[in-house]
């Protein structure tokens, strides 16, 4: 689940979570390891950001601040820009 396919598919284009605008949502396609090894994907799984789950961009902080993302039904998380670029989502 760490190597998300960066391809276009029928369902929508695969982009990073960071490129969703507030109000947009997507389905998680995968979480890249980046510099965090398993740490990021395990923590995100527990918070509900994991393959085939829906994520919704709630707001983006200014001055390069973190994002507020709704994961699944009722969880809101703050995630830093650099971490969000490691989450691949299929735009919906």
């Amino acid at each position, binding site marked *: 689940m760490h190597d998300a396919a960066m391809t276009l598919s029928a369902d929508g284009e695969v982009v990073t979570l960071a490129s969703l605008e507030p109000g947009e949502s997507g389905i998680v396609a995968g979480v890249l390891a980046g*510099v965090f090894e398993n740490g990021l994907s*395990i*923590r995100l799984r*527990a918070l*509900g950001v994991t393959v085939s789950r829906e994520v919704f961009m709630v*707001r983006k902080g200014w001055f*390069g601040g973190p994002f507020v993302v709704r994961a699944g039904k009722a969880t809101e*998380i*703050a995630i830093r820009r650099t971490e969000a670029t490691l989450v691949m989502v299929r735009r919906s």
Partner: protein
Amino acid sequence: MNCCAPEEKLVPLNSVPRVALIGQPNTGKSMLYNRITGASAYVGNWPGITVSLSNARIKLAARDVEFVDLPGIYDLEGFSDDERVVADFLKTYPVDLVIVVVNASQIDRQILMPLQVRQLGLPAVVMLNMADEARKAGIEIDPAALAARLGVPVHLISAKYGEGFPEAMATVATVLDQRHGTPPVMADYDTLRGTLMTEDTLAEALRGSVIYPETPPKSLTERLDRWLLHPILGLPLFFAVMLCVFYLVWSIGLPSQDWVGAITDWIQARILEPVLAFGPAWLQNFAINGIWLGVATVASFVPLIMLFFFCMAVVEDSGYLSRAAYLMDTWMRRVGLDGRSFVMQMMGFGCNVPALMGTRVMRSRPLRLLSMLIIPFSLCSARLAVFVFIISAVFPASQGPLVLFSFYVVSFAAAFLAAAVFSRSRQFKNSEPFVLELPPYRVPTLRQVWLRGYGELREFLRRATSFIILGSVGVWFLTNFPTDAEGLNTWGGQLGQALQPIMAPIGIDPYLTLALIFGFIAKEVVIGSLSTIYAMSAGMVAHQISLTVSPVAAYSFCLFCLLYTPCLTTVATVKAESRSWGFMLFSLGVSLVYAWGVAFIFYQSALLLGFK
């Protein structure tokens, strides 16, 4: 119940059934634990486990049962220190039952933990907490269907309001009854790690028993966040909240110290002095100015600490603290820290010691060490008391709150500067992801706020009382020998004078130098020690200081107080948490040099600008 020596308490292998509480952060697990155990919980050490855990022995259906509160963790397979603590515990100490606490609204993802516990082979009862919130969000949960699917009892409860709680505890009692005579179970991590849990596993577990509404109702949280997390207004609002807390502490906390002071003075004048009058003069002097002074110092903190943690509990339990972490992350990131370091730094404003312990949530050691390096610059409540005393003695009342506020600003600035400098070194470079839950806003209950204030107070008394009395006695010896000496001719006075070449350039006279030396033990000692050093009552000392210490020198003294080592307990905690003498000595050295440097720049600039 054995509650007298919690430190040394060794836990016998399940002479009574052992029930462990586990759950994610923000599930209200600790609130449930408090509801189960009441005030009987105490912190104990468990051999093989690196942190102490809260546990309690209570009667459940006529049988003694031991409850253990495990740290809140996101994932049983995770790698953070807390996650390792839970794994170590479950592998070392067999349990008779695990209570898995789940936030009912977030069962869509938190169902993971009950499933993982099942893989571990542990007998479990699942408690879906915050049932009231789930209902408000329109989430329908059928506990019976879920129980059938999971194969363990499931209860919808509200630990906060007590709903469903008696039934859930009755089930715990029943399960323990059924297990009576069955040996406890050790967690089987091999099976857990060998099982792949996919999204389908989670969805399958919930199918037919949990229904989320198509469109969730507009929540209060959403509306509040529009303002409180506003890209521009968010930060000013945050600082306004903090300023309110300071004003509350100032306007209630400060007078409360006088009330306690009046009580301890009364006890001294009406009880101690008449009784001690029968003994020799030196004994009276020692008992009153050594021991009783220490006791009175501790007592004067009681209302202040409670008030502070009442405020802290409200800020934290309302869900605002993690928003503060979000708001501050942009700025913290620039100095190599993250929003969580900021939250811990905020905790440090109560007491540096728990804040240092709280850095455990950070997985990356460099980030943790950097946070631990800057937390001691947080203006803790003990230093607050010193500042309040000095400020009210030297500055006009109208300026007091502003001067105090300026120390909070300095505290932040000094911490950020230190972080910015040290984060450039490889030892402090962070590699941990920043992902933080933002729980919905909640109204904290009085019970919660009370328990927090009371708990922190108890912890403070336990940790600090003997320390402070010893420190006070130590000051008494230094300021009363040689026997015929007074003031600067005593051992302490000589010490203060010997240090003048270093302290004079920052405007600190020998008396205050001596106070700083004792402040090394604990800042709580400083005010008490001033009474001993000047050989006057606290009220007279304030008067004396207002006559002999200029506002500039007083400010310089406070700056030094703010930045050098908060107390011996902090030093001990830094050592324990970093598990490194080198880091502890480094942290100590940095704080002393830093304190002197900042005070020097301030004092000399002020003199140059013509202030006296």
